[in-house]
């Protein structure tokens, strides 16, 4: 469904990932972030979180993926994304991203949820107002 005012889709397409150690390791190689909270089960067990968690940026990447899938490269010029990491995504979790167009018709409420429906990430994806007319 498209909105009449801007032709933006009303919803972002969902994207999902299953958090495996292999996936975390790939993301660590990509980002160069080998924090033991992501890599070392013994360290993670002793931490306040109790077990291995995925990088926050790994989960956040799903939102960008949803945005790119939904907006097909349009409206991304000058876009911005602001998020809070609400819960860790633990090893073994299944996470899914989504978004809903807000009433201003130029930004989306976005999130990443875990398999329990809890928010792992919550935020707002902004589209620059002056590019709305270009698409």
């Amino acid at each position, binding site marked *: 469904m498209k909105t009449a005012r801007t032709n933006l889709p009303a919803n972002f397409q969902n*994207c999902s*990932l299953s958090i495996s150690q292999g*996936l975390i390791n*790939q*993301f660590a*190689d*990509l*980002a*160069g*972030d080998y*924090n*033991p*909270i992501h890599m070392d089960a013994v*360290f993670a067990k002793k*931490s*306040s979180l109790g077990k291995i968690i995925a*990088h*926050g*940026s*790994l989960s*956040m*990447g*799903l*939102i*960008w*993926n949803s*945005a*790119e*899938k939904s907006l*097909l*490269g349009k409206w*991304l*010029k*000058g*876009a*911005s*994304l*602001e*998020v*809070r*990491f609400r819960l860790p995504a633990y090893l073994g979790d299944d996470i899914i991203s989504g978004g809903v167009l807000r009433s201003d018709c130029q930004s989306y409420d976005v999130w990443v949820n875990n398999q329990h429906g809890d928010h792992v990430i919550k935020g707002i994806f902004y589209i620059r107002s002056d590019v709305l007319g270009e698409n």
Partner: protein
Amino acid sequence: MTSGKIEQQSCDLGDVERWTFDRFISGSLIGSTLIELSPEMIRLWKLIYGSEHLKDGMPRGLAQVIIMSAYTRAVKPRPPGNLHIGQYIKMHSVPKVGEQMSCEVVCVDKFKKKGMSIVIFEVDVAMMSTNALLFTGRLTISWAG
């Protein structure tokens, strides 16, 4: 992937002493580094997230990876157990594959809140060749030490 000279400037300070909350000074430049948008980065991104919907060039989400990479290179050594609790990214433009990017990491604020030691970093990523700003990131980190 990095310029030895600029990366060395970051390492000189970081390798000597681990970054603690007390050492950060609001408004101070922490370090600079160069990152190249390599085909390998794009390959890994597509391996993790899929590629069927992506056009040629940089997936937009790689901006946050580049910002995180700049942060992890410039702010080191870090205490184990830091938690990334918030992030803001503003896209200005997208680099081409093979483009060198100049990344500057600044500590913009630090404070204590609800028993946590919070440090906020801003990362500006610019095209090396023209100095044009590509993207800006702001990372909120709960500092462990």
